């Protein structure tokens, strides 16, 4: 979509300013959860948004196409669709494609053309290189084909988002019909964009999704640092730099989530100076090397990919994040009330410390929610 | 004498210098480097009076910042030899390239053959340190530029003559001795010409003997030169006419 910046940022501001509410839930045993629960939770936090953006990510929803990259596309016009489909056919084997199911509702209008494609990377691309191949193709469509925008590209997962309150967007996409073991939701309150469907959260590349609340004061520093690694920050949003930061460190550099958290929200030098030699060296090296990825200013985020959901708040906890657990279920939310709406009884709730990630992992890999006690 | 041999073929310069340093620190008094091909900074980080023999063609900045060792190059040397050298000795059985012994403060350099452009520039001396450079052949332009101290001797062996210009330009210390004819227009404006005095003659006789001892049996410019075979006559001495060559440059 060549005019992403214009759609996103019609006033040409330095960046978009937005805040929100966020929610995540995961069954660490892998049992499927119905979409209607997260719609209820998001509706409970309606006051945190302003109707200019809502969205969801759901994992484990396409078991029949588990091995295919599921591309969700929005088109401004048929021409964009034609060119994109030709592009997809020339770079992938299109296993299946269809309209993304939706229903007409009174609350939602102005939707773009929404379609999904289940794609296999053609032979000739080594398996290890397939993810990078897909990322390149997503970038090529999003920056090169007018009127087309890929907003979801992972396997067996999908992003559903648009302009409206999240519960209305959820109903529009018929999310109550989906089942997945991990759900993330977001309600947006932008101040300088009228709202564009592609600009809603989650922001996603491959199966990584990020929803974010807050306003990064370090945005421009994060932007140039990521540009050095080849990321073009066309969306002018904090969430975009967070997502690229996750992609760089977690996917490309294969750093564990704890390390990612130590980069985004590092301990204070005072604390580092008091650590053991080994930890001091680790944190000092991380801060010196990746200071450009310190996410400075208020944020709470939920980062998800297959098998893992991570909650993280900035190091001096300027944005809220509540965690809760009941049996195999782990919840993350901007507000506890939203969790209680769907699970009145909880084994534990806690407020994670700034910079300390809450990590929920799928069993049997590791069934645990780290970071707190009742 | 304990002697350590390193085959430098294909060895990266940092690795090679590290190995030489380790050999010196292990107490070896001599290190022999074979098959040297362009590795730089040989001798730079050695702070022991170790002897290093280099076979092959060492890279630039041989003996840069060097403090103590003796390096003998059995072949030609490249640019930047003895850069900012503090003490020790470098002997080259052959020629050397440009910018030889820039800003050298102490120690001695003997080159059997010719040297390139801008050699012996900004030579200094300080306290008991008086750098000495003896070149068997000839040198090219800007020889001894900015010279602030030390002694440089051009023996003029090998028959190549001295075609250099701007010799000693900006010179404000030290002395250059050249055997053979030097035209006034070859010299920098700040240079005076004199006959070597008695003390100079004694100094020349000494370094000529040192040169003969190092190269007399070789195959280069110094070949077959036994005692008395390098003339101690026929030298001119170049000296700085002013301690402050640029004192009048500025409006006072």
């Amino acid at each position, binding site marked *: 979509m060549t005019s992403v910046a214009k759609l996103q940022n019609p006033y*040409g501001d330095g960046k978009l*300013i937005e805040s929100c509410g966020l929610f995540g839930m995961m069954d660490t045993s892998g049992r499927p959860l119905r979409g209607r629960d997260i719609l209820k939770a998001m509706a409970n936090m309606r006051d945190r948004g302003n109707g200019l953006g809502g969205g969801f990510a759901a994992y484990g929803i396409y078991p029949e196409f588990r091995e295919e990259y599921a591309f969700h596309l929005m088109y401004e016009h048929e021409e964009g669709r034609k060119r994109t489909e030709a592009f997809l056919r020339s770079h992938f084997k299109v296993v299946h494609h269809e309209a993304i199911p939706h229903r007409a509702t009174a609350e939602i209008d102005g939707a773009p053309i929404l379609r999904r494609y289940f794609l296999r990377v053609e032979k000739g691309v080594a398996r290890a290189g397939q993810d990078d191949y897909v990322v390149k193709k997503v970038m090529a469509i999003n920056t090169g084909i007018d009127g087309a925008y890929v907003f979801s590209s992972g396997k067996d997962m999908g992003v559903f988002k648009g302009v409206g309150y999240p519960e209305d967007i959820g109903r529009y996409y018929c999310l109550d019909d989906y089942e997945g073991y991990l759900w993330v939701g977001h309600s947006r309150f932008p*101040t300088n964009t009228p709202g564009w469907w592609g600009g809603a959260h989650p922001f996603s590349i491959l199966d990584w999704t990020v929803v974010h609340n*807050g306003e990064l*004061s370090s945005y421009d*520093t994060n932007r*140039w*640092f990521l540009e*050095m*690694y*080849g990321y073009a920050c066309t969306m002018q949003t904090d969430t975009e730099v967070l997502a690229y930061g996750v992609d760089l460190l977690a996917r490309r550099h294969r*750093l564990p989530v704890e*390390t990612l958290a130590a980069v985004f929200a*590092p301990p*204070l030098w*005072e604390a580092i100076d008091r650590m053991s030699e080994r930890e001091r*060296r680790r944190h000092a*090296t991380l801060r*010196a*090397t*990746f*200071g450009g990825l310190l996410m*400075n*200013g*208020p944020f709470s985020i939920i980062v998800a990919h297959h098998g893992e959901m991570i909650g993280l708040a900035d190091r*001096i906890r*300027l944005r809220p994040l509540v965690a809760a657990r009941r049996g195999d279920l782990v919840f993350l939310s901007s507000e506890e009330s939203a969790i209680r709406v769907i699970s009145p009884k909880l084994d534990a709730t806690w407020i994670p410390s700034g910079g300390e990630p809450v990590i929920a992992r799928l069993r049997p890999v590791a069934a645990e929610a780290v970071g707190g006690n009742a | 004498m304990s002697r350590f041999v390193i085959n430098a073929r294909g060895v990266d310069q*940092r690795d090679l210098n590290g190995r030489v340093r380790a050999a010196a620190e292990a107490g070896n008094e001599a290190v022999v480097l074979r098959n040297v091909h362009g590795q*730089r*900074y040989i001798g*730079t*980080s050695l*702070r022991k009076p170790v002897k290093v023999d280099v076979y092959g063609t060492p890279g630039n*900045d041989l003996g*840069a*910042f060097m403090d103590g060792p003796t390096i003998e190059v059995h072949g030609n040397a490249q*640019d*930047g030899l003895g*850069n*900012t050298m*503090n003490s020790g000795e470098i002997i080259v059985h052959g020629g050397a390239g440009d910018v030889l012994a820039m*800003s050298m*403060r102490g120690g001695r350099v003997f080159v059997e053959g010719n040297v390139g452009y801008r050699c012996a520039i*900004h030579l200094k*001396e*300080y306290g008991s*340190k008086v750098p000495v450079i003896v070149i068997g052949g000839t040198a090219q332009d800007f020889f001894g*530029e*900015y010279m*602030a*101290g030390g002694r440089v001797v051009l023996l003029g062996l090998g028959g190549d003559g001295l075609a250099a210009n701007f010799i000693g330009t*900006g010179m*404000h210390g030290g002395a250059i001795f050249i055997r053979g004819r030097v035209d006034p227009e070859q010299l920098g404006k700040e240079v005076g010409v004199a006959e070597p005095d008695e003390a100079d003659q004694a100094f020349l006789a000494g370094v000529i003997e040192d040169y003969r001892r190092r190269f007399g049996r070789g195959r280069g410019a110094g070949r077959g030169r036994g005692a008395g075979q390098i003339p101690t006559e026929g030298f001119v001495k170049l000296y700085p006419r002013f*301690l*402050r060559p640029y*004192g009048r*440059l*500025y*409006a*006072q």
Partner: protein
Amino acid sequence: MPFFAPAQFIVDRDDARCIRCKVCVNQCSFEVHSYDAETDEVRSRDERCVGCHRCEALCPTRALAVRFNPMEIRPNANWRPEHIRDLQRQADTGGVLLTGAGNDKPFRIYWDHLLLNASQVTNPSIDPLREPMELRTFLGRKPDRLDFDDLDGELTTELGPQLVVETPIVFSGMSYGAISYNAHLALNQAAQEFGTLYNTGEGGWPAEFRRFGNRTIVQCASGRFGIDLDYLESAAAVEIKIGQGAKPGIGGHLPAEKVTAPVARTRMIPAGTDALSPAPQHDIYSIEDLAMLIGALKEATGYAKPVCVKISAVHNAAAIASGAVRAGADIIAIDGLRGGTGAAPKVIRDNVGIPIELALAAVHDRLVKEGIRNHASILAAGGIRSSADVVKAIALGADAVYIGTAALVAMGCTLCQMCYTGKCNWGIAVTDPWLTKRLNPDIATRHLVNLLRAWSLEIKEMLGGMGINAIESLRGNRLQLRGVGLEDWELKVLGVRGAGA
């Protein structure tokens, strides 16, 4: 026939207040004041006055006032008094005009056209007095990625040598000789006390200071004064000085008058000769030669110290900096048009180079575009006057700044620009032991530490306002800047939006 050349300063003496203590007579190295015992009068030769205000400051009865004397000639926007005075001096002497300190011409000072942001509503400002605010800065090459052991999670990537400073303000190189021993001692002590760095400049490094080596950058400049292995090994980092903002492209001559015995000892040259610094380093005629010297210095220091390359801000600074980083520089220092000097030809100081703000922005952008910005830190120098300038420099892309003139002013310099005369009445830009004594190194240390403290507090205030609590999040964060009164092309070079946009 004499020129019409009125005194530049007028010394007003209130005779009723003057107690004939002769402090002014004894203090003035330019010999402005004299006492006539016969008439019991103190007289002034105003034409010798350089406007350093030493006498005024020390006069116990406040009987003295030194005022600038505007040349009362027909106003002419083209032929200004400075031109006329310079013409006269050159007609008189046939020499090159020297000057000291930084460029005093009214070239646009971009700091004064940049305004900072503050948080309102959408993100909170942070209260630096009560919440953490971090200024610690690492200077040196950073790796592109970090690797950890798969089994035990141990960090396996070794971070190259770094300089760690507790505030992003580093003292700039000023040679011993250009400034006094006591000035060096004070800079040295202040850097140690505050956790920042002192730079020896190119005039060697007094041996007794080497106990402060972990807080010292030593210079390797074209004159190679005082450089031996001990000098290199005792320091925290080595800086290759290619250029200086006040005099890009030219060398320097420390006049023999300033080469006293201790200066000569420190530079390891004979006393009483001019100390010449060639224009280029004669072992660097090209970028690969720079790589060679960087390599030699790293070899000489066991690859344990970062190597900084200092260049003047010139027209193609971005390309030069990029080349230097690729040649192995771990830190790039850029010294702008308004950088200071102990002595420079006036025509060079006032006409060569570009402002630091533009060069800094261009260098940062180029290194980002080439994906090597993390391979070197950037030190911005040349006309940093306040903590706001520091913050703006970092927002434009610097890791830290060098201050020279500001530090001298903190020690008492009044910017009379006579550094090159060797007569500094304040004991700063001087080597004469009688004048050097005037600078009490412990008081000067206190003043420097106070300056660092005050600026650091102010930087924290500004950062907090922006909602940033670690200095690394300001680096290259140009959205925190807006331009006022700048042309489009200037905004573009700076990468900054106009105010309101």
